[in-house]
């Protein structure tokens, strides 16, 4: 999968796709759209929608930062698909890409050096909040895929 595969032409019939300028002002809109797209399926537990909302917000924050490093005003695409008991959201950017495998682990909470880490919490949070998370990235951009199962009422 690369960002190209997320162009509208390959959209599934039930998808809601939002394309925004890579600017922080649109984060709240992304959260609102993901929540609303999920709410269309009345069976989904509010707690799970909240989890997903935050995870997608994190992914979009990273996408906005990735574009900023390029000085790019290219847009970010957020695709939501609600299918039975699962919601899948993909966030695609045209940033410089990165190696998802090489993200360092955070120091343990008891380690005094933990306080030097003001960043680096986004990916751990996305992993915590979702049932499945996956990154694909190359020098044309990155795609994060986040999935929550609506039946998993409790956070992991």
């Amino acid at each position: 999968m690369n960002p190209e595969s997320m162009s509208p032409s390959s959209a599934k019939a039930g998808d809601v796709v939002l394309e925004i300028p890579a600017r922080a002002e649109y984060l709240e809109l992304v959260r609102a759209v993901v929540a609303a797209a999920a709410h269309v399926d009345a069976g989904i537990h509010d707690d799970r929608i909240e989890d997903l909302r935050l995870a997608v917000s994190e992914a979009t924050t990273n996408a906005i930062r990735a574009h900023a490093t390029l000085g790019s005003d290219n847009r970010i695409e957020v695709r939501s698909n609600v299918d039975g008991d699962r919601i899948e959201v993909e966030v695609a950017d045209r940033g410089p890409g990165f190696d998802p495998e090489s993200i360092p682990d955070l120091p343990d909470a008891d380690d005094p050096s933990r306080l030097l880490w003001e960043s680096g919490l986004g990916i751990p949070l996305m992993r915590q909040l979702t049932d499945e998370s996956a990154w694909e990235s190359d020098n044309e951009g990155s795609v994060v895929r986040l999935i929550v199962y609506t039946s998993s009422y409790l956070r992991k």
Partner: protein
Amino acid sequence: MNLGISRDERDGWMVLAVLGDLEMGSAPDLKRAVIAALADGADALVIDLGAVGFIDSTGLGVLIGALRRCRANGAELQLVCAEPRLRELFASVDLDRVFELHVDVAAATGVAL
């Protein structure tokens, strides 16, 4: 998006009460407020998150930075956060072991200086 941040003195603590969503666009406002409070000589800070509805990793990062800055200045820092979802959020990335989360400002300023 801008945060509302008000400053208040209470029993020797400087209380920064935050209003709004603490995220990428707004978190720098809180960072600046903490730096300003320390520059103004505060040696005991409370950040009151009681009127914050949403915190993301950027917001958590600013709180970690605030704790680091306070320690570097020999200042105390306590957080007020009663909302169960936000408390869970701290716990989900082990920050409940870094911060004590108080249910209200009275509990936070009750900590011995």
